[in-house]
């Protein structure tokens, strides 16, 4: 690895960890895992943002233009974090860690080894092959490659505008409207490598996976899961076949959305349970970055803001809010359509027969029964998710009392219900059904909410005493309780 490439990894990582440390000075359990996981992922996005802001005129040397401001940013934020951590040091809430039993250590190591094993495969896959999956080059790398090889930024515009343009400076293509965060990230690494070498440009996908697992482990620990239980959930999340595929065949944006949406949900859950405003701010940062990564990110952001905002209202206000929503829907039904501005998507026209989204197109509304088979196969028979979609509803039913009592679980349940309702509507009642029938998109969009689903399941299972099941003795009541 060249010095420049090592530097290209180090600076964003340092900036990301510094930002997380500035947000979270409480040093809860799992702090360093969270700081590393969030720091790695956010840091990569900072590198993309720095390239976007500072290197448009000279993309071939993006890192040369952006490294100093990014380093300065890391140092300033790191100083803030250090000062905050010193102020908090006296009030540190980290409980002394209890020693794990030997069999738990063995299981912990086995889970780690299993994850490391697939990480090695993924790393070799990335390092050896040219970019393979279709959208990776067609939708995402097409912009970064154009900008890097051109040596400067060029806008991607609709076909009509491209044809009508007189300068010939703009580019076009089917993915002209896709957000550019990942393209700028690839420009950052291409400039560090000094050439368009796809394996090295695609390496951030492995870092993303590692960051996702670290971030979730740390936050689950902070939410009260034991080390063993947090590691078990990390194993279950990291072992999902489709997640591994998105690392090994790097280049798609879906794992980024899944990770950042998952990070937002984790931080939100900590806000709900611990009233930590820093975590709320972190959740906002994550949620606001979603539309910059993929168009669907705007939808997840809107759903998140809607559910979180509604849930934070006083009871009386919720009634008013629900009344306003019902009134808007009723008016829309009366006049036949609604035109609403949606951040990241433009003015979306919703009628009884179609949804017109400016940057995507028109989706006719009609029930597609054949898509049901595609959805069922995707979730329940294909080896994409192991047992996740069988077990998730069973766990919710089994832990219904805890689900009802835990505010964070209830809130996450509402968010996931809204998200899955959106996916159900999209794939069963619009033209997007063809992507469910062909399996070409349904699993990838489902993946966006999977880490968040794991967080809800982790909250529901954090207090279950499994020893009776293993040892054949009568179970005790829940080991600990958490505020509702």
């Amino acid at each position, binding site marked *: 690895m060249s010095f420049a490439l090592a530097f290209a990894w180090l600076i964003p990582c340092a900036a990301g960890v510094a930002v997380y440390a500035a947000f979270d000075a409480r040093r809860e359990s799992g702090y360093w895992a969270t700081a590393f996981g969030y720091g790695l992922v956010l840091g990569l996005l900072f590198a993309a943002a720095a390239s976007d802001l500072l290197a448009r005129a000279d993309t071939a040397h993006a890192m040369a233009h952006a490294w100093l401001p990014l380093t300065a940013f890391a140092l300033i934020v790191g100083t803030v974090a250090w000062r905050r951590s010193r102020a908090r040091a006296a009030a540190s809430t980290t409980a002394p860690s209890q020693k794990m039993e030997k069999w738990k250590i063995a299981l912990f190591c086995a889970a780690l080894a299993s994850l490391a094993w697939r990480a090695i495969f993924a790393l070799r896959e990335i390092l050896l092959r040219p970019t393979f999956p279709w959208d*990776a080059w067609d939708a995402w790398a097409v912009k970064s490659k154009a900008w890097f090889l051109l040596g400067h930024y060029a806008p991607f515009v609709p*076909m009509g505008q491209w044809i009508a343009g007189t300068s010939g400076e703009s580019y076009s293509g089917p993915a002209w409207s896709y957000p550019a965060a990942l393209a700028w990230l690839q420009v950052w690494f291409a400039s560090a490598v000094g050439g368009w070498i796809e394996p090295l440009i695609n390496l951030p996908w492995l870092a993303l996976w590692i960051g996702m697992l670290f971030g979730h482990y740390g936050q689950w620990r902070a939410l009260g899961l034991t080390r063993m239980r947090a590691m078990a959930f990390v194993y279950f999340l990291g072992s999902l076949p489709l997640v591994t595929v998105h690392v090994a065949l790097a280049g798609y944006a879906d794992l980024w959305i899944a990770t950042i949406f998952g990070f937002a949900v984790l931080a939100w859950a900590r806000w709900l349970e611990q009233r930590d405003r820093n975590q709320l701010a972190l959740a906002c940062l994550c949620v606001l970055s979603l539309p910059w990564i993929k168009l669907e990110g705007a939808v997840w952001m809107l759903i998140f803001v809607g559910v979180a905002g509604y849930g934070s209202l006083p009871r009386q206000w919720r009634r008013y809010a629900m009344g306003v929503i019902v009134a808007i829907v009723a008016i829309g039904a009366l006049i036949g359509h609604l035109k609403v501005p949606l951040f990241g998507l433009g003015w979306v026209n919703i009628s009884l027969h179609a949804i017109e989204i400016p940057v995507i197109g028109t989706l006719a509304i009609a029930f597609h029964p054949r898509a049901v088979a595609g959805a069922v196969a995707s979730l329940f*028979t294909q080896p994409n998710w192991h047992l996740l979609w069988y077990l998730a509803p069973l766990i919710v039913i089994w832990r219904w009392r805890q689900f009802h009592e835990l505010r964070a679980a209830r809130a996450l349940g509402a968010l996931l219900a809204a998200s899955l309702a959106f996916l159900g509507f999209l794939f069963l009642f619009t033209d997007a059904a063809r992507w469910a029938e062909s*399996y070409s998109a349904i699993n990838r969009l489902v993946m966006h909410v999977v880490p968040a689903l794991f967080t809800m399941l982790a909250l529901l299972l954090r207090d279950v*005493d499994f020893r*009776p099941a293993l040892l054949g003795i*009568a179970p005790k009541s829940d080991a600990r309780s958490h505020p509702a």
Partner: protein
Amino acid sequence: MIRRFVCIVVIALIWLIVLAWPAGLAWESPLVPKQQMTLDARDFRVVRGAGVEDGASLRIGSVGDDGSALQAMPLRRVHADDFSVLRYRFDGFPRTLELSFFFRRADSPADVEPAVTVPWPGDGWQTLDLRKVPGWRGDIIELGFAEYATPQIAPPNVAFKPFRFDRAELSSPSWRGSFAALYTSWFGYTPWALVSISALGPQREVAQAPPLLPFAMLGVVLSLAAAAVVLRWSRKSIAGRAIVAFAALWIVLDLVWLGDLYSKHVFTENVYAGRPWSEREQLVPDPDIAQAAAQVRNYFATQPSLHQNLSRRILVGAESKYVFLKLIYELLPLNAAPIQQLTVSRLPLNDTFVLLFGDTQWHYDEAHGTLLDEHALPPGVSADSIYQDRFEHADRFEPVWESGDVHLYALREARQR
């Protein structure tokens, strides 16, 4: 103790039934096949490629001009219903090749039933349930195998390596055959494909057994229920034990997935490991696209732009969306976009080019000096009106360069007819 013994027997029966279902087991069939027909590889005729006898085996040393090898064997009217299980064994079969199976029936001797992709022949015997192969009925008069570079993933220029075809066997239905076919289907190697990024289920192989996941889940649920009844588990303990059982099943499924991932990865190692990036970036499943793009880039590198302040733009047409999008990516940093997306009625700029690659719906009409989209012509409408509607002027296109399947046309100032 007795309860535990009964529990074990009941659970064993449950798993037998649960596995027999996807295997399509006929309960009345014998444990081992009653009839068996051995087909030594040396008796197969090499139709394409080259092969030599190696004892009872056939050593395939090269492929034909189209990059595939094919071996066939005539049969004396074998009744398809009598032989519903095919076993085959190869040695050293490269992961970069795909295997397909074909046959000819007595009722249509001139037609070869479409070749169907069958599980990759790894080490040892592989088994195929022929009842699930379309057209396997009547009397079979010929069967054979074909090998070719794995579509979508294997670079054709490095896909072939010599291998040995050992033997094939046709056998009558049996428990052994049914379960062996199920095993091959569930645990055989499936290569990466373009759809892998979206779903791992759909595979190219024909005769896929029902998927493993729901049957494994059903087996565990029924086993838990049986154990709860026979061993009189308390209600409270069932949930915890179920979670432990499901976690164990998750780990088993994960081990299966890790095995599959390892197999997929061996392909990547075989093709790319030990080569520098400059060589690896050429090893793509569609080298013709990359070569065409390189040729076009070279052409433009030697051509001065007519308008110094104007970047050239290229409209790309090809037979499929995949091809023209890949071509556009490979052409970068040239400014290209798909001609299929052209919805405006004019092409105003000079120094715009049209690049046609391979079979495409666009054709150059020399008489009118324009390009014709044959698919866009409604019945009864003359080509002229379409040109006039589609393009501002005819006589603006002229061929400027071609090489093999690559045809490049330039839009120039309209000439006077």
